[in-house]
C-alpha cells in the first residue's frame, strides 16, 4: 500500500485543499461555528472555567492507574456476561473481531462512527472476508459510498458539499438528483433502516468507559450508534485502552466536556451506557457483547513521560475546530483518521516519528489547541518534544535525525550566539554583504536556497545598515 505520510503527499494535499474554495468555506464555517461556541460552553459549566484543569487531573490520574482501571472494567463487563479481549496491535484487534464474526455466522455488519476502527483498518478486513459493512453515521456513510477517508473526527464528510453528496447518492443509491439535505438524509435513512434490521453484528467505538460501573459510553446525534448496539444479535465495541475513567463522578465531568468539545452541546443527543449483552429475559439487546481494548502503540506513549499526557485525549476534536493549519489544509493531508493538532501528535507516535514527521513540523505552535482542549492537553509542548526527538534522533522511538544541513545551520547559529564578538562581526558583515547582493532600495524580493519559500509570496525586510546595537552606542545620553 502507498505510504500516506510522505512530504510530497503532505504538501500536495495541503495545496489541493488550500486551492479548493468550497472546502475553505466549509472549514472556515465549522471553525467559526464550533470554535467560539465551545469556549462559551466550557465557561458555562457549573464548575466554572477551571473545569478543564480539573478534568486534566482526572485524566492524568486515570492514565497513571490504567492497568488497575482496565482490569476492573474487564472484570465488570465479564461479570455482566460480556467478553473482553486485549489487543496488542491492529492485527490482533481485527482478527479478534473476524473470529467473533465467524463464530456467529455474521454476513452483514452495521457500524457506528469509530476512529479507532479506522485506525486498525477494520472495514477493509471485514470486506475481504466477504462481510457486508455499512457505516451508519451519515457522514461516514457518505464517505464510505464515495470510497474516501474521514477528514474530521466528528464531521468526517466535511470536505463534501451537498451537491457532491447529491450526485453521489444519485449514482450509488439510484435516486433522483437533489441537493436538499433533508431529502438526502431521508434517502440515506431509508437504505440504512433496512441495513439495521438485517444486520447480524453491530460494531461501535467507545467514547468513554467507566471502571466503577463497568460500562462503556457511546454518544451520537443521529441515534445510529444506539441502533447499532441494540438491534443486531452481536455487539462488538472497539476501545482505545486509554478511554477508561475510574468513577461515575469523573465520567460525568468528562462526558459533559466531551459533548462541549465535540459539538458545543451540553450533552450529545443519544447517550448509551453499555455494560454487556441483553439479559436473557429481555426482549431486545444483543445476545453477545464483545469489548476489544486496543493498545496498538499506546503503551509506548504510556512508557514515555513526555508523551503520556497524550493518553488524556478523549478525541472530541475541539482542537481541530480552532487550529489555523487544519482550517487551511483540512483532514486528508494528515494521512490518518486523526487529523488536526491531535493528529499531529498522535499520528507520528502511532505510525512512526520519521514517517509522519511533516505532521508535527507542519504546525505553527500557536497554542490555540491547548486553549480549546476540554482536558487542557499541552499539545504544543508535545509537538516541540516530537521535533526534538526528530531533530536530534531518539532511540526509544527509533527516530533518526531529520536533516543534517538544518542541524549544521542550527549548531552554527548556536556557536555564534555564544561567541558575542563573532556574532557582532557576523551581523555587521551580513548587513554589508546584503548591500552588495540586493538593490539599494526596498525589501528583499528573492531569498536564496532553502529560504526561497518565504519570498514566494512575501518580501523580507533587509538587515539594517545600522542595527540597534550600533545606534545604541552612538545615542545621546538623556540629561
Amino acid at each position, binding site marked *: 500500500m502507498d505510504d500516506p505520510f510522505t512530504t510530497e503527499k503532505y504538501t500536495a494535499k495541503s495545496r489541493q485543499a488550500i486551492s479548493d474554495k468550497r472546502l475553505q468555506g466549509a472549514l472556515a464555517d465549522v471553525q467559526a461555528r464550533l470554535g467560539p461556541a465551545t469556549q462559551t460552553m466550557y465557561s458555562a459549566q457549573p464548575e466554572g472555567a477551571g473545569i478543564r484543569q480539573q478534568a486534566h487531573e482526572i485524566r492524568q490520574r486515570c492514565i497513571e492507574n490504567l492497568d488497575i482501571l482496565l482490569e476492573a472494567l474487564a472484570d465488570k463487563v465479564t461479570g455482566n456476561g460480556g467478553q473482553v479481549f486485549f489487543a496488542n496491535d491492529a492485527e490482533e484487534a481485527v482478527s479478534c473481531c473476524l473470529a467473533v464474526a465467524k463464530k456467529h455466522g455474521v454476513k452483514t455488519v452495521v457500524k457506528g462512527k469509530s476512529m479507532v476502527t479506522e485506525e486498525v483498518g477494520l472495514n477493509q478486513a471485514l470486506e475481504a472476508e466477504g462481510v457486508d459493512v455499512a457505516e451508519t453515521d451519515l457522514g461516514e456513510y457518505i464517505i464510505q459510498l464515495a470510497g474516501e477517508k474521514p477528514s474530521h473526527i466528528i464531521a468526517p464528510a466535511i470536505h463534501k458539499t451537498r451537491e457532491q453528496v447529491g450526485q453521489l447518492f444519485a449514482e450509488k443509491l439510484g435516486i433522483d438528483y437533489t441537493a436538499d439535505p433533508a431529502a438526502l438524509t431521508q434517502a440515506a435513512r431509508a437504505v440504512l433502516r433496512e441495513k439495521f434490521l438485517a444486520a447480524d453484528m453491530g460494531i461501535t467505538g467507545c467514547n468513554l468507559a467507566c471502571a466503577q460501573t463497568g460500562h462503556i459510553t457511546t454518544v451520537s446525534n443521529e441515534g445510529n450508534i444506539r441502533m447499532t448496539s441494540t438491534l443486531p444479535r452481536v455487539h462488538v465495541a472497539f476501545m482505545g485502552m486509554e478511554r477508561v475513567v475510574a468513577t461515575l463522578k469523573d465520567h460525568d465531568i468528562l462526558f459533559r466536556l466531551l459533548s462541549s468539545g465535540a459539538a458545543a452541546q451540553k450533552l450529545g443527543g443519544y447517550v448509551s451506557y453499555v455494560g454487556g449483552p441483553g439479559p436473557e429475559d429481555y426482549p431486545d439487546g444483543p445476545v453477545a457483547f464483545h469489548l476489544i481494548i486496543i493498545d496498538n502503540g499506546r503503551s509506548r506513549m504510556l512508557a514515555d513521560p513526555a508523551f503520556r499526557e497524550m493518553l488524556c485525549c478523549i478525541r472530541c476534536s475541539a482542537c481541530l475546530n480552532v487550529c489555523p493549519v487544519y482550517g487551511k489544509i483540512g483532514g486528508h493531508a494528515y494521512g490518518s483518521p486523526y487529523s488536526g493538532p491531535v493528529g499531529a501528535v498522535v499520528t507520528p507516535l502511532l505510525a512512526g516519528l520519521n514517517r509522519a514527521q511533516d505532521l508535527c513540523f507542519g504546525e505553527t505552535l500557536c497554542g490555540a489547541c491547548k486553549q480549546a482542549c476540554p482536558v487542557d492537553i499541552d499539545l504544543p509542548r508535545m509537538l516541540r518534544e516530537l521535533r526534538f526527538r526528530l531533530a536530534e534522533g531518539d532511540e526509544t522511538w527509533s527516530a533518526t535525525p531529520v536533516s543534517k544541513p538544518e542541524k549544521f545551520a542550527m549548531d552554527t547559529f*548556536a556557536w*555564534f550566539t555564544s561567541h558575542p564578538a563573532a556574532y557582532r562581526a557576523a551581523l555587521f558583515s551580513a548587513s554589508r554583504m546584503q548591500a552588495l547582493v540586493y538593490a539599494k532600495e526596498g*525589501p528583499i524580493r528573492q531569498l536564496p536556497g532553502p529560504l526561497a519559500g518565504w519570498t514566494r509570496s512575501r518580501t523580507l525586510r533587509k538587515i539594517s545598515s545600522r542595527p540597534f546595537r550600533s545606534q545604541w552606542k552612538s545615542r545621546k545620553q538623556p540629561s
Partner: protein
Amino acid sequence: MLPVFPEVTLFVQCMVDAMAPEAAMGMVRLFDRLGIATSFPEDQTCCGQPAFNAGYRTASRKSAMHFIQVFENAECIVCPSGSCVAMVRHHYLELFADDPHWLARAKKVGGNIFELTEFLVDVLHISDVGAAYQGTVTYHDSCHLLRSLGVGRQPRELLSHVRGLTLVEMAQSDRCCGFGGTFSIKYPDISTALVADKVERILETGADTVVGCDMGCLLNIEGYLTRMGHPVTVKHIAELLAP
C-alpha cells in the same frame, strides 16, 4: 509614583536588533521619557528560541546558557518581543529540566524578564505614555504573547491612550498569522494561506496601520502586504508609543 527601579536592562530580540532597530530605539526613548535608566549588555545575542522550536535543543541550550550568563545579574529585563519572553520565562524550564544547576539559574532570569507592554502596564502601572499618532490602527495578537504570557489587554490599553489614534479591532485578531519560525520557510503554502487570511482581516478594518508586539509576526504580515501592494503601514508598538 512610579516604583523605583535602579535600571531596566534591555534585551533586544535578535530580529529587532538586526531588522527593526527603530522599534528598540522607540523603547529606549520611551524609558528616557519616563525617566527610567536603561542599559544594554552588548554581549547579548539570541535567546535560543528558533533552535528550540525546531527541535534542536542542544543548540538551543548553548544560546540559552549564554543568555543566562549575560542577564543573570540584571534585576529587571525588558524585551520588545512576547515570544522571546515566553521562551526565557517558560521554555528555559523545559530546556534545563534535567540540569538542576542551570535550571536554578534559568528560573532566576525567567522571573526577572518582562515583555515591554506587560512591563509598562502591569509593573509600572502606566497606560498613558503621552504618545500621539494620527491614524487608524488595528492590533494583531501574537500567539505566544497572548497565550503563553496572557498579554492582550496591556497593548490595547496603551494604544487606547495614544492621542489621535483610532483603534479598530480586526476579526480573529488572535488567529495565528502563519509565521511560526522555520514553519514559514518549510511549509510556505500553508504559511502563505494563513498570512493571506490575516491580511484580509486587516484590510477589512480599513486601518492604515497594523500594530503588534512581536517582530516575527510583523515581518510576515509586512512581507505579504508589500508583495501584494497594499499600502498599510506595519509598526512595532514601541515605534508608535515613542516616535
